[in-house]
């Protein structure tokens, strides 16, 4: 890993998580000379702590374009996974069997149905199928639900993958296509100069024609350096993983899914907790209790790990994609569904960045939406 001083790139991507890696991978595919600058071994990294859903249902209430953007990525995932496999030999275990979102009472089920209906009633929203299943109908699909389960919503577009393998495949692909991945290079400063950018890191300076901010939580600090704004906050989510179990659950069931390796992953919580990734036993206990009510057969399984990770949340929960007005080679990309949207970041967003221009359809994702004074 040579020193960076004097290096020149077409694009410097800041942040080696899922957003940055997928974008860098997409840029490299188009022949761009890319540097990917990342922090070290211990960092606030939602990319290593996520739930690995490629999930469509329920997303986009309040921003119909997000529903379309999400569906487009999920639709692109099959091709994306195939490209990764062809390039690296790594199978990221993408599977799209359709997903259930369970409800533990009639009231929960009703609220879910209304939410989905409101989502799909929005003007201009993309159309796709979903169903509300009552308990009897759900038992046909998932015979081992517990007595408290009232039903579920179902959408055939939902799927999941192995997100750790996704990160590894992206990195193997980056290496394959000559991207300069540089860990332990936290970007301290970015300066727009001579139509390009100079990035000061702990391990030297990098020059690049364009810069993509994909630094997750650190975008808050970095964005203003290039005339952008990234109003995001951390939202803590806890996840539980059990020992490897014989395959019994192919569908992701909202916050419960079985991985291709056999472990059962169970999420999830939504807490404002700063950047503290300490695990709160009461929260994981609540998650565990809900999971056992949904699938009582999970009760005897051993929990081998729990962790907490920070989602990168904007105020309305939707992504921010933006090109700087004052330093037009600078782009911002931040979202909390980095797995679902990875296909888009690689195959849809990267080409625009390579071309140097975000088209108008991205205006809706601009942080300017937060700048209108909020109605009281």
């Amino acid at each position, binding site marked *: 890993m040579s020193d960076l001083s004097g290096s020149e790139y077409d694009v410097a991507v800041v942040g080696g998580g899922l957003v940055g890696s997928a974008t860098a991978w997409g840029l490299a595919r188009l022949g761009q000379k890319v540097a990917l600058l990342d922090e070290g071994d211990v960092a606030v990294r939602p990319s290593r702590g996520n739930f690995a859903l490629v999930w469509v249902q329920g997303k986009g209430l309040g921003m119909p374009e997000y529903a379309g953007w999400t569906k487009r990525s999920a639709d692109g995932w099959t091709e994306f996974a195939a490209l990764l496999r062809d390039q690296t030999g790594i199978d990221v275990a993408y599977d799209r069997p359709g997903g259930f979102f369970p409800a533990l009472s009639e009231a929960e089920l009703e609220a879910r149905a209304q939410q989905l209906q409101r989502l799909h009633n929005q003007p201009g929203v993309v159309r796709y199928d979903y169903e509300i299943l009552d308990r009897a109908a759900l038992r046909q699909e998932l015979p*081992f639900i517990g007595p408290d389960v009232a039903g579920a919503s179902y959408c055939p577009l939902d799927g999941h993958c192995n997100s750790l393998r996704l990160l590894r495949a992206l990195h193997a692909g980056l290496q394959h296509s000559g991207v300069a991945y540089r860990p332990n290079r936290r970007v301290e400063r970015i300066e727009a100069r001579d139509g390009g950018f100079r990035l000061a890191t702990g391990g030297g300076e990098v020059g690049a024609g364009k810069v993509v901010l994909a630094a997750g939580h650190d975008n808050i600090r970095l964005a203003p350096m290039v005339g952008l704004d990234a109003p995001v906050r951390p939202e803590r989510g806890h996840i539980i993983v059990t*020992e*490897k*179990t*014989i395959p*019994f659950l192919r569908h992701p069931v909202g916050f419960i899914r079985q991985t291709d390796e*056999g472990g059962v992953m169970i999420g999830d919580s939504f807490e404002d907790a700063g950047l503290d990734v300490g695990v709160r036993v009461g929260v994981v206990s609540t998650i565990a209790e809900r999971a056992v009510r949904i699938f009582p*057969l*999970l009760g*005897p*399984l*051993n929990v081998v790990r729990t962790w907490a990770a920070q989602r990168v949340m904007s105020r309305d929960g939707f992504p921010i994609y933006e090109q700087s007005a004052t330093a037009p080679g600078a782009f911002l990309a931040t979202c909390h569904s980095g797995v679902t949207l990875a296909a888009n970041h690689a195959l849809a967003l990267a080409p625009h960045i390579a071309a140097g221009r975000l088209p108008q359809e991205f205006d809706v994702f601009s942080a300017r939406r937060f700048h209108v004074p909020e109605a009281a």
Partner: protein
Amino acid sequence: MFQRLPNAAAERVPFTIDGRPAEAQAGDSVAAALLANGVQTCRATPVSGAPRAPYCMMGVCFDCLVTIDGVGNRQGCQVRLEPGMRVETQDGKREIGL
């Protein structure tokens, strides 16, 4: 392959290994009881199916995992043998009661 020292006898404890009757003695862990009965392999790994047997005897390595009284993936070296226990060797991933 382990044998009991001649002057280390204690009260006999009957139990079963994969349904076959077996005997060990008071104070034995389940893992010790298996070794004393000539069991060479207590499980096959869920990753490659490789055979494994107790390695650390102190609860660290998880290679002694066995099914005890119907409950899978228990650390045999950390569970004291009780009369009548049903001990089963394991093959691969944890079973789940579907």
